[in-house]
């Protein structure tokens, strides 16, 4: 019984992990290439979820809704980059923190004004509502499997973009050495805008797909943003590979920790103590993981910046 639960929780952790990766991928590129703190990335996750919900209602099709919402979120991201963030690249980190903090307040209030303060519920599309047997006799929700599938597909696509295309080469050059990318005669401004749009699309996609299994509400992107930070810190700023490994790691550790730590503590202490301490420790587990990684590797698991 426990083995099945573990399998199920592993899949849940995987699903959480690929979501985190979608968030962290864009963020780590923005940090790595532009050396910029962008707190508003979580807002794009939220905006993506809202836009997708609306488009799904208009078109009556979840897939169509997402297909329309991804480019729309990318456009929002590009607009934000062009209007506000572009002026911040040369500023110090403190300015970036404050201005993007202002953006969060603005976006949270914007969706509250446009869509109302109440949480929206969007349905899982009919064709993904059932369960699938991952191994015979073990059913698992089809929608969550779909999320894992889409997440892995995007990770693969991103890997191909970064490792095989000219844009990817420039991104890698930029992450390890910004001056060199400039010296290559690259249109840095355009590259930044495109990378930002790409990151926004990923963040939005994460929000859209999480929508049906949680709720779509103002501020929904903020906690996930901080988790994405943890992922980036563990993975190493600027490294897409690091973001992937760390996202899966964080997803698994968090999910499995929450599911099993209280039981685990029961082996050593009284049940009541275990039930109190277990959740407390579980809630801190990924931060402890982060601290441990930093202690041994201050630059993260896969440091991208070399000089």
């Amino acid at each position, binding site marked *: 019984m426990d083995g099945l639960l573990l399998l199920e929780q592993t899949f849940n952790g995987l699903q959480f992990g690929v979501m985190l990766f979608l968030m962290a991928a864009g963020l780590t590129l923005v940090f790595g290439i532009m050396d910029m703190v962008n707190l508003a990335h979580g807002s794009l996750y939220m905006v993506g979820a809202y836009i997708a919900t609306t488009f799904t209602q208009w078109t009556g099709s979840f897939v169509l809704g997402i297909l329309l919402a991804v480019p729309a979120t990318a456009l929002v991201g590009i607009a934000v980059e062009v209007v506000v963030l572009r002026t911040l690249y040369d500023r110090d*980190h*403190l300015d970036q923190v404050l*201005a993007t903090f202002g953006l969060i307040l603005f976006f949270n209030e914007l969706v*509250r004004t446009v869509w109302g303060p109440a949480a929206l519920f969007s349905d899982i599309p009919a064709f993904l509502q059932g369960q699938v047997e991952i191994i015979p006799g073990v059913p698992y929700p089809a929608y969550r499997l779909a999320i894992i599938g889409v997440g892995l597909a995007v990770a693969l696509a991103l890997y191909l973009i970064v490792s095989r295309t000219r844009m990817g080469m420039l991104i890698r050059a930029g992450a390890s050495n910004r001056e060199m990318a400039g010296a290559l005669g690259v249109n840095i401004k355009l590259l930044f805008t495109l990378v930002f749009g790409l990151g926004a699309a990923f963040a939005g996609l994460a929000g859209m797909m999480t929508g049906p299994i949680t709720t779509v509400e103002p501020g929904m992107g903020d906690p996930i943003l901080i988790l994405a*930070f943890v992922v980036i810190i563990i993975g190493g700023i600027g490294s897409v590979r690091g973001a992937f490994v760390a996202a899966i790691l964080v997803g698994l550790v968090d999910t499995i920790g929450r599911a099993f730590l209280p039981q685990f503590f029961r082996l050593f202490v009284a049940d009541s103590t275990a039930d109190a301490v277990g959740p407390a420790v579980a809630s801190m587990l990924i*931060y402890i993981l982060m601290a441990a990684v930093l*202690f041994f590797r*201050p630059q993260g698991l896969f440091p991208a910046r070399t000089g």
Partner: protein
Amino acid sequence: MQALRQPRLLAQLILLLLLAAVPPVMTAIDEPFYTSLFTRIMIFAIAAASLDLILGYGGMVSFGHAAYIGVGAYTVGILSFYGVDNGFIQFPLAVLLSAVFAAVIGAICIRTSGVYFIMITLAFAQMLYFLGISLEEYGGDDGMPVYRSEFGGLLDLYDANHLYYLVFAVLAATLYFGHRLVNSRFGMVVRGMKSNSLRMRAVGYPVYWYRLTAYVISGTMCGVAGALFANWSEFVSPDIMHWVRSGDLIIMVIVGGMGTLFGPVLGATAFLLMEEYLPEILEGTAPGAGEHWHFVFGPILILIVLFAKGGIFGLFGGRERGDD
């Protein structure tokens, strides 16, 4: 130089005197609400001033200082929960615990710098926030009520004026200590590290330990603000550690003028007054607009960053640079 410094010193003294005069004036005009409001403002002024020690003077952008307000507040709250209301026990313990938390968290954060430092301080603050939520015994998400501290009959914190003057005294002590600190040998090292830490290392400073010490001092002072906050609100909940509160503290420092001692006081005043009255003002322009005040505040913040970095203090004769 002395002559140049006088007006600023005078302005600061006048501000302190004005703050000292709040309770009797408010009592006289029968507006006790303002005594409470200014108590809260001064509590956040203490927190903002302590953040400014490392942010403005030390160049360390800590995005997690609300965590120490939480540690201080929860120390008072949990002791109160177990019936320990003695302030002479609560406050020293709040100081000790926030120092310990700051030392442990700082020991890891200080190893990094730049973007990393910002994100890690934020992440650790979030850790304590979630820890607070998971503490079901102490109210979890909803928090728990707190009895105000007792000081053996010396002070009655349920008297709004007593509470006010306690907070006022702590604020004045914080500012005086801050003034001594930033001009001391240690303060010069902190400022030097902001300016050029590579050079500091080359002339022989073990930068890590000085950074860590500054961080611990700052976190501890924030913890005192937290202990006062628990008394003021008679309530603690994880919400005081929410990451937006950490952002608020940074805003107070920046809006007031960072790298100054009085800037954070002005910043806390401006910020909390704005929080209190901006919704009302907006409501006046269009019904229903009040609840969406962040809609206006967000862009205001961006504009301040882009165009007015000196802060309020900057309007009064620039930042304190060489001497203060």
